[in-house]
Structures are given as structure tokens and as C-alpha cells.
């Protein structure tokens, strides 16, 4: 076991895969000599060389498209979007070429796309987004979002070894803030949910950075027993774990850092409405970012992102229902 930050855990998984499997290569903008905008691939260039730690042209469609080509002839590319926001420029290749390939032609596309996402840094409208729901809506793409250092490593190992396209949402706010004990070597975390804290009065369902917001908001909430369910994987979504939590707790708050409409949490709410209705003792409550671009100035940004206070308030109200 080692104590690693979330960022170190991501680096560790990448390094282990590059060492273990010569089919793995990492590619992206400024990831080689410079070590990446967030230094996830710091030192990789020296260990693995320019061909397996590839500085690409500034071309997100090119990154995804060439990764698909390399994958179908036997490689295991891991693409880095410098910011998840930039995936919009590679959207077509991911959704239309990679996502539909196996269904249409029986040809697997084992690529992983790392998407540094999330706000809280005055990154503004183009460096703060949470685009995971775009890909949940596109058949053929798996979507995972770790919240802990251990899961950051295990989910990345599993993503790289998965025979399908996987969007790996890594939250920038967790990079250096979250630290934890991580097993050494390769281990794969399944694409299932995890109970971050068991409880019985109410469950808060979240993923990524919002898991920490949920834990902090409900750590001591007037003595109530609050469960926190960390989804970890959005596609596939762990329906069994969600429905079990709902059955156990009867009251549900769902948090998204993404914009509200059609966010991952909307899908969770729909699932509960369809299949967990009998277990509910109150309305399903959602806390999410309103449908606005993420603003730059701190008071504006803090006003839209789900805060500890907003989550606490939402839980209190629902507990009193």
C-alpha cells in the first residue's frame, strides 16, 4: 500500500499499464516533454519515449480518430483531453465512429479517453464543464468517474483493459486535494457503485467530486443516519446498488456538478421513479448546477456549483418531510 493523491493514483495506473503492456500508449496535447497540463504524465516521456508518450498536434478530433485507428489494429491507446471541455472538438469521432463500431461491424474499439473535468477554479465556461451526460446518451461508450485515489487507480486499470471506448472523468478539484491508501500494482475496480458511508435515514447519491461534498454536508446532520452512495460508473449504471440504497433509506437526494437538465442524476431519478417508487417516503430531491455556462468570477461560480450548504439544506428539508 502507498499513500497517493488522486493525481498520483492516475499516474500510477498509467505507468503500470505502460510497463505491463506494450500495446498501451498515451497521447495528447503537451503530455510528453511537458508532462501534461496537470503533470499527470510527468516523467513518462523519459521512461517510455516519444512514441508511447505522444505529443500530438492540437487536434482533438485527430486524437480520438487516430486512437480509434490504432485500437482496431491492436493498440490500447489512452487519450488525454487537456480539459474535458475540449472533447466537443472530438465528439463526432467518439460518438459516431468509436461508439457505434462494435454494434455496426463487430469490431471492438478499446480506447480510454481521460477527461479532466469540473469547476471550482475560476476556469470559466471552457475549462470547468462536466460533460459526462453527453456520452451517457451515446450508445456504445462506457463512462466512469472516480472520487477516491484508490478508485482513480483501479477504475483506470479497468478502463484501459476494457474492450470498449471508456470516458474516464477525472475531477480536477480532487487531483491534489484527495489522498488515500492505494494498493500497489495492477488491480481493477469493477464498474459498480460503492457505499461511501452506510446509513438508514436518507441516501445521498453522487459521483466524482460531489461524493466529497455529500460526505462533508452529511457528516453530522442533526444525528441523522445518512448514507452516501458513490456511483463510480455512470455507464453501466449500478441499478441494483441504487435500488438497494433507496430501499434501505427511503429518502433520496441526488447531486450533480453537471448542469441539471438530463444530467446523470436525472437518469438516477428516473430509475428510482420507475423501479423504486414503493420504497420512497418522500420526493426524490436533486441538487445540481443550473443550466448556465460555468461563470468565471468566484462569487458567480460558487453561486451555481452545488455547495456543502445547499446539499445540507436539501437533506434537512427532505428529512423533515
Amino acid at each position, binding site marked *: 500500500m502507498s499513500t497517493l493523491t488522486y493525481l498520483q493514483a492516475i499516474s500510477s495506473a498509467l505507468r503500470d499499464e505502460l510497463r505491463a503492456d506494450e500495446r498501451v500508449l498515451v497521447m495528447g496535447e503537451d503530455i510528453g516533454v511537458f508532462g501534461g497540463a496537470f503533470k499527470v504524465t510527468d516523467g513518462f516521456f523519459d521512461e517510455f519515449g516519444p512514441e508511447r508518450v505522444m505529443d500530438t498536434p492540437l487536434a482533438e478530433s485527430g486524437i480520438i480518430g487516430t486512437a480509434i*485507428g490504432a485500437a482496431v*489494429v491492436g493498440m490500447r491507446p489512452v487519450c488525454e483531453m487537456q480539459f474535458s471541455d475540449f472533447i466537443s472538438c472530438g465528439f463526432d469521432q467518439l460518438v459516431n465512429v468509436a461508439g457505434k463500431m462494435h454494434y455496426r461491424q463487430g469490431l471492438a474499439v478499446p480506447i480510454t479517453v481521460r477527461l479532466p473535468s469540473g469547476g471550482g477554479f475560476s476556469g470559466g465556461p471552457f475549462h470547468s464543464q462536466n460533460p459526462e451526460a453527453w456520452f451517457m446518451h451515446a450508445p456504445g461508450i462506457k463512462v466512469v468517474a472516480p472520487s477516491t485515489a484508490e478508485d482513480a487507480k483501479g477504475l483506470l486499470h479497468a478502463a484501459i483493459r476494457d474492450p470498449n471506448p471508456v470516458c474516464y472523468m477525472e475531477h480536477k478539484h480532487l487531483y491534489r486535494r484527495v489522498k488515500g491508501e492505494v494498493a500497489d500494482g495492477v488491480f481493477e475496480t469493477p464498474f459498480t457503485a460503492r457505499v461511501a458511508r452506510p446509513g438508514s435515514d436518507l441516501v445521498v447519491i453522487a459521483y466524482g467530486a460531489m461524493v466529497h461534498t455529500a460526505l462533508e454536508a452529511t457528516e453530522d446532520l442533526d444525528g441523522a443516519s445518512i448514507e452516501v452512495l458513490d456511483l463510480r460508473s455512470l455507464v453501466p449504471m449500478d441499478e441494483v446498488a441504487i435500488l438497494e440504497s433507496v430501499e434501505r433509506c427511503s429518502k433520496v437526494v441526488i447531486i450533480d456538478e453537471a448542469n441539471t437538465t438530463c444530467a446523470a442524476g436525472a437518469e438516477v431519478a428516473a430509475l428510482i421513479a420507475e423501479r423504486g417508487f414503493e420504497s420512497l417516503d418522500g420526493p426524490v430531491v436533486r441538487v445540481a448546477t443550473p443550466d448556465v455556462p460555468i461563470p468565471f468570477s468566484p462569487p458567480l461560480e460558487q453561486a451555481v456549483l452545488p455547495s456543502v450548504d445547499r446539499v445540507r439544506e436539501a437533506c434537512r428539508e427532505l428529512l423533515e418531510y
Partner: protein
Amino acid sequence: MATNIAEASASGKATADTHLLLEDRVWLLRAMLMMRGLEERAMTLYRQGKVPGSFYDGYGQEAVSAGAAFAMGPEDRLCVLHRDLAAHLIRGVSPARVLAQYMGRATGITNGRDGNVHFGDWQLGCVGMVSMLPDMMLVATGMAMAFKLRGERRCALTWFGDGSTSRGDFHEAMNWAGVQKLPVIFILENNQYAYSTPLDKQFAVDPVERAAAYGFVGVTVDGNDAEAMFEATRAARVRVLQGDGPTLIEAVTMRMHGHAAHDDMKYVPKEQVEEWRKRDPIDRQETRLREAGVDVDALRAEIKAEIDAATADALASPMPDAATAADGVFCDGEAEPLRDGQAPWSGFRAEGAVDGDGQPAVAP
């Protein structure tokens, strides 16, 4: 850097003679006749209501895919466009599977998952196109990137149209391949119209000129001459395998039918069609082979019989089971890479075969 069509055609023909045996030249005619015959049969089936959706063909453009695909080795990989049926036939896709594909049958190449020419048999080294053009330029570039990274002596090839040169993925692929000097051959299938849009609304400068700006060779070839297409592609393959970087081949041709079955092509001047009809690629290859003493009529009869048999076979094959509509979105097993395709050119079969530069034609 670009040569004019007449020069390319003349030099292509002269050089091609040294690389094509008579049996190869017959193969080229066969592939073109089979493509045209299958597409004509599919059009009949379409009119009979047996082909759902719309129908797209490559009438008049058969030489582009036949000539280029014929120069590709078994380990090379192809991303095939919708007017390039001959490439699939050369790689080994059977006529019955093609017709079953058009009709959405369970035995088609995509098992009814996708329609018309949106297919590629991965077990024959081909990836099918998507409708967002030219997305496959980047996929082919990525294949070439992997070949170079692994030190393999193979290349990737893809086709795209004149309209595709306007989209960003054209630039991203050309630039990427040029920067990394990748073993990829880009074939610009210039058939004069992108749906109804003529060339002068698509670009201000002939796109073959752009190759130089990306740092590699661009050549213009008579796209209605299968042997010239073969030779230009063969020569490009030698260059890319030597590590000289990509080649852009502009195949100048004409789309003789509408964009799809519903398109009456009113926007195309009649004289333009008539002018191009005189340059039909099949007529040209037939004339050559008749002069060489080949019994072309017998070949035509043989192909017609094959198409008749394929039609019966395809019509007898089942529609997909509706209960399977949601199957196969994800791969549940091992990701298996593309497999090798058929490569009928005699240059790959001959003992100690070389592909023009003294190296084995096929990587060991």
C-alpha cells in the same frame, strides 16, 4: 506537384504494364464488372422494394476502388467509402453477402445493423465508413501510426470525396500524417459533385495542391483508368513503406448517377455526363483486354451467373431476429484486431515477391 490527367494516365499506363500480368488486368476488369453488376442488381431490388432506405452506387467510378485496392497487401488495412464496392470484392467479400447487406438481411456484413455500403468486414482488414465524412481519414492515420510505432512494414489506405476536403478532419488527418510521416495513402475521389455541390463551390484551389503544404507527395491520376489507379497506388505504397511519408492521390472521375437513388441529377449538365460516358472505366479496360485476346464475353457471362446465384442466395437468407436489436452494443469478450484480407495481385504471390523496392511485398 500535381500532374495533369493526360500525363498521369499516359505514364501510369506505361509503368503499369511492367507490374501487371494479364491475369491481374483481368482481375481488375472482373472486380469492376462485378461491382457494376451487383450495384445494378441491387438497384433492381431497390425498385422492387427489397432494399430498405435509399440506395447509393459508384457507377462510373469503379476503377478508383478496383485499382487502388488491388495494390494493397493482405496485411494492409483499408477504410472504404460508399462508392468503392470493388475494394470489398477484392478483399474477399462474397457477392451474396453484399446483396444481403443491401437488403438488411441477417447474413449481410453488418447483420442488418447498418445499411447499403456502410460496411467493412473486419475479418478482411476493412473498416466501414460513417456518414460524417471524412472521419475515416483519421482512423486510417491512426492505423498507420500504430504500424510505424511497432516497426511493421504495412500501410493504411482510405478513400474520401471532393466534399470531404472542406471539413476539419481532412486537415487534421493530412497534418497529423505529414507531421509523423506515416505510412498512409489518402485517395481523394474527385467525382465532380458532393451531392449537388460542384467543385467551384467546394474549394478555391485543387486540393491535391494541399499535399505539398502538409509536407508530402500529391499526384493526380485518371480515376477512370484502373491500371493507372493501380500503378499510382502501388508507387505510393512503395514510398510509404520506405518511410517517405504519406501520399495524396487525387483520382479524377465522375459520379454518373445521382447522389442516391432518389436524386435525378438535374443540376448536372447533360453534356458533362455524355463527355464522361465516353471515358467509361469498364469500356476502357475491356478494350485493352480484347486487344490482348481475352474472351471478355465469357467473363461477362460468368459474372452474370455469379450475380444470379448471389441474388438467389441473398433473397433466401433470413431477416435479422428482432429480439437481437439491442445485442452487440458493447464488446463482452476480448478486443480482436482487424484480420488480413485477400490480396490477389500477382506481385504478392510470386516467389520472392517484391513490391518495387527490393523488399518482400508482405511483411513476414
